[in-house]
């Protein structure tokens, strides 16, 4: 309501409609700063000061994470990985969000956040351990403030919220404060844990940002199976702001996530970001999307490719030489080769390592089971025919 409208309402004796608190405002639009055609546009709420060098750095991230993904799919097809969850199509959402974080912030991923992992500085080969079956994760979450992949859908939203409650108790909210980001997908919004996380975050005003990559498909189920309302609007009912950003626009994802994280760090509480994107590949390498979706849909989304638009923008605005793109391709290929080599060289865990780290110390029961199993294995020594 404008000042003029308010004045009119006062004169006519009508009560002005209750104004939404500013932090509760629900944006009905798709926030975009870079169109699919590569045209840079402005948004009044999300001004983004960004240098040519920074945009080129984002482009590099996008190309490299797509290449890591490509390499992992190939490794799965060659039998080197048991399974892989591809991020194809979601690079901008993940790089935009990932680059919006400060090193001191904490990220809680699902099992598809390979792009965020890259931005956090995690060695991409580490991601393959889980999919090769040599560990359940195996990186130190405190080294890059990037938690282990969580496979049960939505569980990590609560972990992120609890971690944010810890930040509050540490007094680390305010200037120079810390915040947490929880990643999940459209399917996860149906989970009780995600909704409980919204409630906890809201009533405690915790410094957590919920970053939902709506890639339109929860394996074979389209969004209509999960929600009758746009996902970002759910936030309103929980009492915090939600917005929808073009998830294929790395600049918009960066700007929106930066703003939400800053608000969280400063004590303004949670935000739900719905990154509107598309899973261009299968759910995982075991999936066959041709059984449940039309190829026309995929073709339409290809026109909104998250990488191509950045390239077009850089070319048209003359912020990058053609040699730059060749250099990035070469570097991406190098990273791909490195990941491939690391994967092939990954040793299998020793059989008895399965007894490690169940508890802080080894219980008598586990010690006995380990001894029994070791003796059993040793009984085969010298019996090559059996092995």
């Amino acid at each position, binding site marked *: 309501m404008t000042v003029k409208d308010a004045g009119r309402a006062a004169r006519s004796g009508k009560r002005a409609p209750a104004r939404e608190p500013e932090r509760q405002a629900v944006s009905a639009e798709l926030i975009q700063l870079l169109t699919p055609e590569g045209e840079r546009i402005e948004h009044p709420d999300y001004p983004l000061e960004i240098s040519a060098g920074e945009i080129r750095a984002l482009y590099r991230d996008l190309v490299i994470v797509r290449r890591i993904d490509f390499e992992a799919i190939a490794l799965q097809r060659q039998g080197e990985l048991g399974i892989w969850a591809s991020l194809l199509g979601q690079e901008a959402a993940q790089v935009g969000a990932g680059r919006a974080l400060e090193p001191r912030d904490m990220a809680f991923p699902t099992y598809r956040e390979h792009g965020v992992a890259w931005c956090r500085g995690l060695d991409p080969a580490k991601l393959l351990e889980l999919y090769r079956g040599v*560990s*359940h*994760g*195996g990186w*130190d*979450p*405190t080294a890059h403030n990037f*938690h*282990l992949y*969580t496979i*049960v859908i939505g*569980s990590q*939203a*609560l*972990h*992120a*919220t*609890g*971690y*944010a*409650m*810890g*930040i*509050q*108790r*540490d007094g680390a909210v305010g200037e120079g404060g810390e915040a947490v980001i929880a990643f999940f997908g459209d399917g996860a919004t149906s989970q*009780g*844990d995600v909704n*409980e*996380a919204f*409630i*906890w975050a809201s*009533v405690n005003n915790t410094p957590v940002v919920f970053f939902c990559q709506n890639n339109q498909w929860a394996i074979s189920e389209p969004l209509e199976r999960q929600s009758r309302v746009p996902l970002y609007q759910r936030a309103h009912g929980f009492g915090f702001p939600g917005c929808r950003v073009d998830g294929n626009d790395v600049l918009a994802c960066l700007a929106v996530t930066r703003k939400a994280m800053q608000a969280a760090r400063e004590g303004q509480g949670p935000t739900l970001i719905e990154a509107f994107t598309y899973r261009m590949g299968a759910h995982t390498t075991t999936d066959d999307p041709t059984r449940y979706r039309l190829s026309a849909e995929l073709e339409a989304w290809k026109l909104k490719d998250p990488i191509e638009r950045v390239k077009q923008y850089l070319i048209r605005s003359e912020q990058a030489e053609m040699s730059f793109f060749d250099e990035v391709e070469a570097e991406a290929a190098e990273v791909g080769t490195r990941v491939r080599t690391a994967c092939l060289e990954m040793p299998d865990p020793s059989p008895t390592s399965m007894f*490690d*780290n*169940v*508890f*802080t110390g080894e*219980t*008598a*029961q586990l010690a006995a089971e380990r001894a029994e199993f070791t003796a059993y294995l040793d009984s085969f020594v010298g019996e090559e025919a059996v092995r």
Partner: protein
Amino acid sequence: MTTLTLSRALNEGLRKALEDNPKALIMGEDVGKLGGVFRVTDGLQKDFGEARVIDTPLAESGIIGTAIGLALRGYRPICEIQFDGFVFPAFDQIVSQLAKMRYRSLGTLSLPVVVRIPFGGGIGAVEHHSESPEALFAHTPGLRVIACGGPADAYTMIQQATASDDPVIFFEPKRRYWDKEEVDTDAQLADALPMDKARVLVPGTDVTVLCYGPMVRTCAETAVAATSDGRSIEVVDLRSLAPLDTATIFESVRRTGRCVVVHEAVVTGGIGAEIAAQVTQECFYNLEAPVLRVGAYTTPYPPSRNEEHYLPDLDRILDAVDRTFGY
């Protein structure tokens, strides 16, 4: 030495835990002003503040899930699940996350979370308020599952659980909350029996009766009653259900040659079944009779007017003891 109810002993133990561990927190439904529906946390919010004694929204998965996050941040949450039958909304977070995080992280992460659960029947309650789900947790690798039987153990074990770097499922015998016992609140925690050790509560020579939680008192009373029949029952309070203190169990059974396991939980697939298998394997040549179990029949918990028939009592335990002499 001071005489405390089990509820009060837990309260004093929690107070000590909050004093000793600046990172310890209490969280759950109604644990603040109300002091919990059994008053176990009475007065703690007043003394330690709302940031450390947290009234949570009414959602059990949320309680455990956020406790995990707090633990990842360096806190030591002590969660209260209001009743045994209400733990299942949190079952996924407990089994899939809490129990497995250390293993998943190759030992990098610790989750020092305590989950307190009042359990068992005998209080005339409605459905979901009298259950004994301990075997479900004991079956899950990565969880320590313990149960206190009386006030003295309650006081020390809740402190030991809080100090543990592993997740602990802490069962409290709700019908014994108002039982009294002498508790030495000045004793050093380091001198106390570790929480994963069983205790021979009543020494005996003829038969070993293993029990925990609410059945500890029942079994101790049974041992007294059995003396008039000339039977010497050794009562062992298991205290820890995962891991089991098998050394103490086997030592006792090898001496007595007979073993009866008593719990309120359904016998099928229960703690007693596990013990029977292990005792049979390890004490086979010492056994004069098969290991017998006394527990609930394989039905859901009945309406409370029937619970006196459903729950093990002195007579059913004596009957089982008698049967071990019939082989």
